[in-house]
């Protein structure tokens, strides 16, 4: 597990992360636009520290990291935890390079990733926490089918003030109702083989 494989979206693709991606990760974690929108995966650090982190995440048993690419260019990363007993997923990070915002990549990546969670891994649910003022991420979550189940008050601190946190959940049933046509592999007729 740990380092995630290829998941194709309409334009972007989640792919196996490699060490060469780490410099971009560091830049995004240092970008105040990213830091304002959500918590960082790791704080900016020296290249050697990022290499250590990369080695550690590769050994993780319940966590998965992907890099995100579009048009042959690295544009983001995704990271999450698979719950014990394989029942659900915590989507902890979905970072898109701020220079690539407002191109629809966020939704495309999120849709492809959730197709993988429900259609391929057969997980029961996915959980997400977002800052209450991150309107773009909340719109994506709503469009996918997430429902708010809790609101933490004064959770994140930035720009000299606290901001609330929204916790959201999406069930497999919602995926199946809303995104029935989303399949990675076309269905095979009964008894057919490839």
């Amino acid at each position, binding site marked *: 597990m740990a380092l995630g494989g290829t998941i194709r979206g309409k334009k972007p693709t989640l792919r196996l992360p490699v060490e060469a991606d780490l410099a971009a990760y560091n830049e995004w974690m240092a970008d105040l636009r990213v830091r304002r929108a959500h918590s960082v995966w790791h704080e900016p650090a020296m290249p050697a520290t990022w290499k250590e982190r990369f080695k550690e995440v590769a050994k993780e048993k319940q966590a998965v990291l992907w890099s995100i690419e579009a048009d042959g260019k690295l544009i983001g990363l995704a990271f999450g935890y698979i719950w*014990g*007993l394989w029942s659900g997923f915590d989507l902890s990070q979905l970072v898109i390079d701020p220079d690539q915002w407002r191109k629809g990549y966020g939704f495309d990546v999120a849709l492809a990733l959730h197709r993988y969670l429900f259609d391929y891994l057969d997980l029961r649910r996915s*959980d997400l926490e977002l800052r209450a003022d991150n309107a773009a991420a909340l719109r994506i979550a709503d469009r996918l089918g997430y429902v*708010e*189940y*809790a*609101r*933490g*008050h*004064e*959770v*994140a*601190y930035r720009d000299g003030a*606290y901001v609330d946190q929204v*916790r959201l*959940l999406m069930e497999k049933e919602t995926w199946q109702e809303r995104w029935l046509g989303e399949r990675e592999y076309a269905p095979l007729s009964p008894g057919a083989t490839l």
Partner: protein
Amino acid sequence: MFGPTLAGRNGVSLIPPTLEHYKLRTSWVVAPEVGRFWGPRFGELTEERQEKRFKDTAESNTEIEWSTAYEGEPVGYTGIFGIDWVRRDGESGIIIGRHDLYGRGIASEAVRLRTDFAWSELRLHRVHNWIAHANRGSRRANEKSGYKQMGLQPRTFFRSGEWYDEWLGEAFPHTFPEKA
């Protein structure tokens, strides 16, 4: 890190854990009475693993942990974990391992001591937790020290043919009862 000794009421105190306390935990967490609202009742429950946990917790700068003592004997443990020192937020937890002592108010007093310490010594801004909604005793123990519901995660864990919700709580210095 381990927390300092906090003397409470009715024979309850929070004390710095010892390795012997850690070794007691493996027998506690595998008991059906204790695990009803908690973990899967399996894991790497070896003495070596407990020694590593003991060492790691002692060295950690993002968690603080105590053993809960009742009349001088260790009966469980509690702490605040994943402390973010910028947000000044952490996640709290408590296990009373001696299920024969349930109903004596040990958890309520342990939570009161822990929560008071979070505000008056650690200068935290917020503490949050997850408790099985059906675990009324634990929920009540936390509510008495100012925890309030911030949501319910539906159908989170499965026991004996039924799904149970998880209660999400949060507490702030201003929600701590004045006379607690």
